[in-house]
């Protein structure tokens, strides 16, 4: 009986491992994420990572690219029709996409190392 029950749970976990849009999972995920962020923030690691990311992005020209995109937007829309929200909405997806893989990998590596050293 117990065995059957565990097998069921086992299947469920397999299911769950593929899906991450279930509300529960999402909630859990958020929880974990906040915990990770909290840990990073408290230790000051987050700040360091931010600085690292900033310098890497500046070096690879990601910032200038993004600014150019902004200017185009502004010239399209006109100087008076610009708000923070519209800018952010337009810019963010492009921003995420245009980050070079190298930079991403480096940063991920850093985070992983940190979490291994300081498990939650």
């Amino acid at each position, binding site marked *: 009986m*117990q065995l059957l029950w*565990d097998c069921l*749970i*086992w299947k469920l*976990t*397999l299911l*769950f*491992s593929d899906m*991450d849009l279930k509300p529960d*999972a999402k909630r*859990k*995920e958020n929880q*974990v*994420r906040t915990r*990770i*962020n909290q840990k*990073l923030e408290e230790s000051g690691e*987050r700040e360091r*990572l*931010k600085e690292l*990311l*900033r310098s890497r*992005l500046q070096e690879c020209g990601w*910032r200038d690219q*993004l*600014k150019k995109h*902004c*200017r185009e937007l*502004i010239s399209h829309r006109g*100087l008076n029709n*610009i*708000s*923070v929200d519209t*800018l*952010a909405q337009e*810019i*963010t997806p492009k*921003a*995420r996409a245009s*980050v070079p893989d190298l930079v*991403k990998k480096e*940063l*991920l590596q850093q*985070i*992983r190392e940190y*979490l291994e050293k300081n498990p939650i």
Partner: protein
Amino acid sequence: LKRTYALIFRQRGRPSIRKHLFVCMDLSKNGELLESVLNQLIDEESLGVCFEMHRAVKLNYYELLYPDDSAYEKHDLVNVKGLDIFGNAPNAMKKPVDCVCPNCSRMLGAQKFAPHLEKCMGMGRNSSRLATKKNKALADSEQEGSDDYEEEWTYPERKPFPTQGKKQPKKFGTSGNSPKPLAGKTSLKPLKDVDSLQLKVHPSIQQHNVDTFACLSMDCKHTLLQQICGVVSERTGRLCTRSINCPQHTEDQRLDVRKRLLATQDQESADLMTSPFKRRLEADDLEPYHELSVYENVLSEDPLEGTGGRSLVEEGPSLLGSSPDKTPRKVIKLEKKPRKLGVVPSLPSSLFSSSHGTTSSF
């Protein structure tokens, strides 16, 4: 995942399996979780860029950062003959004149205005004599013929010379300050009255040198020389403004001066050529010697000095026994000369008070 599950199942009890489910989930979504963390960081960076641009737009310095093409055209190099590289003509630097002088109606730059006004009006410390000369001449000519000798003069306050109770408030603010270079030239009213270009004419005697004296009208000269000693001082070049009986100069000196100053005159001024003192005495029809003897007792000085001392007071007719319409002279002591007669002033008052109208009662 299976392996870990199996391990957990074997090693720990069943209830703990569920607990560890979450751990498995963490590990499987490890990559995504970390990516989401990273994405958060990236979002923050991109927001930073957005804020930067938005701020520039809202605070109006976006155009400074990323100027339009038209802005570039405005500031292109200018390569035209006769203009500089910015497009300015070489004479464009001159500014227009700013101020109009109220006296001479000339246009002046702002920096030159104040000194010019000083000279123009003849009121400053270093102003030219011309202006004051003209002013004085103007004032004198207006005053010509005015026989208003009613006003009495008083000693400057540092020498408290009693004036028989008729002491009038000091009118001549600068009367004591002879060393002032311009004292004689300006009106003897306090100098703050600069605004009135027309100097208020006062029947006062001012300092003159030979030049300014020459500028005066004939009548002025005459009246002046009847009132003052007039001897030209070697040191200052000015006419002595003490009374006719000034102790510091002799009659000969006075005669000489009058000859010089009125050299071009004709018979009209012949009367001035006589000894001023004697002339006065005659006019007054008095017995001078009697009076003088009084002083001779008191003063061990020249009789002339005695009268000089006397004359320094306001001279009422009582002393000289002359007619009442003999008006007192106004002599302003403008020169700093050693005053030998410091003692004298005190005497006449006692004389006046005790014996008004009488000659002497010593």
